[in-house]
C-alpha cells in the first residue's frame, strides 16, 4: 500500500542523517523512503524526489569517506619515551587527593626540547660567525706571527664540516619541531654572512652554498 507522504523536501532533508542511522520510527522511515525512492509496485512512474535523493547520496558519500579515515599507528619513539620516563622517575602516585602529584616531572613537550636545542645550536653558530667577523685585536708579541695561512687544509676542511653539521642539525631540529626555515632566510641571513666571513678569514674558495 502506498504510504502517506505529507512531508516536504526540507523536512526530509533534515531527517536524512537519522534515516541513514535507522533512527526514525518505522512509519516515518517508510515515508522518507517513499519520498526518496518512489513507489514502483503500483506500476506508476514515480521515481521519488531527485533533489532529496541526491542529498542522500552526498550524505552516504561523506559517511563512506569518513569510514575510510583509518586509525594511525603511534610512533615507537613516543611509547619508548613514555616507558623510559616511567622507569626512570618513580612509582605511580598512590590514591591520594585529586590534586596530589608524584615526584615524577612531566616530560617537557618535544617541541620545547627541540626548540631549546635549535636555539642553542643557532646561538653557537651565531657566536662562531661573530667571532670570525669581529675585527682582530692589534697583534701582540704572542700571536703577531700567526697568520691564517698557517691553518692546514685539514683544519679548514674540518671547520667547514663542523659548520655544515651545525646547519644540518638546525635544519633537522626545525623539521622535527615543525618549524620551517625558509631557504631565502637561511641563505641570506645565516649562510651567506657565514660564508663571507669564512672566505674573508681564511681566503678560502667559495663554499658550495655560495655558488647558488
Amino acid at each position: 500500500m502506498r504510504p502517506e507522504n505529507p512531508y516536504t523536501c526540507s523536512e526530509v532533508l533534515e531527517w536524512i542523517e537519522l534515516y541513514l542511522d535507522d533512527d526514525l520510527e518505522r512509519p516515518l522511515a517508510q515515508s522518507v523512503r517513499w519520498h526518496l525512492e518512489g513507489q514502483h509496485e503500483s506500476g506508476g512512474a514515480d521515481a521519488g524526489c531527485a533533489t532529496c535523493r541526491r542529498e542522500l547520496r552526498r550524505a552516504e558519500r561523506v559517511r563512506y569517506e569518513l569510514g575510510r579515515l583509518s586509525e594511525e599507528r603511534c610512533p615507537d619513539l613516543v611509547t619508548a619515551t613514555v616507558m623510559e620516563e616511567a622507569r626512570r622517575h618513580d612509582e605511580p602516585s598512590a590514591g591520594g587527593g585529586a590534586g596530589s602529584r608524584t615526584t615524577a616531572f612531566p616530560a617537557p613537550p618535544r617541541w620545547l626540547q627541540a626548540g631549546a636545542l635549535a636555539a642553542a645550536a643557532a646561538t653557537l653558530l651565531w657566536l662562531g660567525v661573530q667571532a670570525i667577523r669581529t675585527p682582530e685585536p692589534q697583534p701582540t708579541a704572542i700571536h703577531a706571527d700567526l697568520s691564517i695561512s698557517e691553518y692546514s687544509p685539514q683544519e679548514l676542511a674540518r671547520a667547514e664540516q663542523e659548520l655544515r653539521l651545525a646547519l644540518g642539525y638546525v635544519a633537522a631540529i626545525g623539521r622535527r619541531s615543525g618549524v620551517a626555515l625558509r631557504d631565502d632566510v637561511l641563505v641570506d641571513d645565516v649562510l651567506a654572512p657565514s660564508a663571507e666571513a669564512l672566505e674573508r678569514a681564511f681566503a678560502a674558495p667559495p663554499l658550495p652554498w655560495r655558488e647558488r
Partner: protein
Amino acid sequence: MPDELEAFGEAVECHKNRLFTFALYFLGDRSQAEDVTQEVLLKLWRNWRKLDGVDVAAWLTTVTRNASYDALRVRQRARTRLRSLDETVHAVPDDRPDPARRAASSQLGRRLEEALRELAEPYRSILILREIQQLPHQEIASTLGMQLSTVKVYAHRGRKKLRELLSDDLDGEVSDAS
C-alpha cells in the same frame, strides 16, 4: 613496582594508537599529536593507582581530548603572536596531513580531514570517536558526559556540517543518477 610497570606497559600498548589517532585527526599535526599522546600516557602513569576501578579507556579519551584542545589553543595563540611579530622565519606549524598520508588518500578524503578540523567542538570529537574510531554512541556519551540523544544529535549535525563544508567537492563526486 615491576608488576605495575608491566601492567602500565600493557595499557600503553593497548591504547596508544587510539589516542594518537584521536590527537592526529583533532590537531592535524603529527608532531603535536605525538606530544599529546606522550603527555597523556605519562599522565596515566602518574595517576595509575588512582585509576583502580576506573574505566581507563574513557579516562584516557577525556584526557586526550582536553590535551588536544589545549594544544590547539596554544597553537592558535602562537600563530597570532607570530603574525604580530612579522617574523622573517616562518614558524607556523603545517597542519596539513603529512606527505605520506596525503599521497595515500583521495582528494575528497583530504578535504574531509580539513573540513573535520573546521568543525567546532564537540562536533569534531564526536565525529572522530564515532566515525573514525567506531565507538558506540553510548560509550561516547559516557566518555563526554552527555546524554545519548545529545550525542546522536551532535553526530547528525556534525555530518550535515561536513556535507555543507564539502559541498563543492561533493558536486563533482555525486551524480543524480547514482
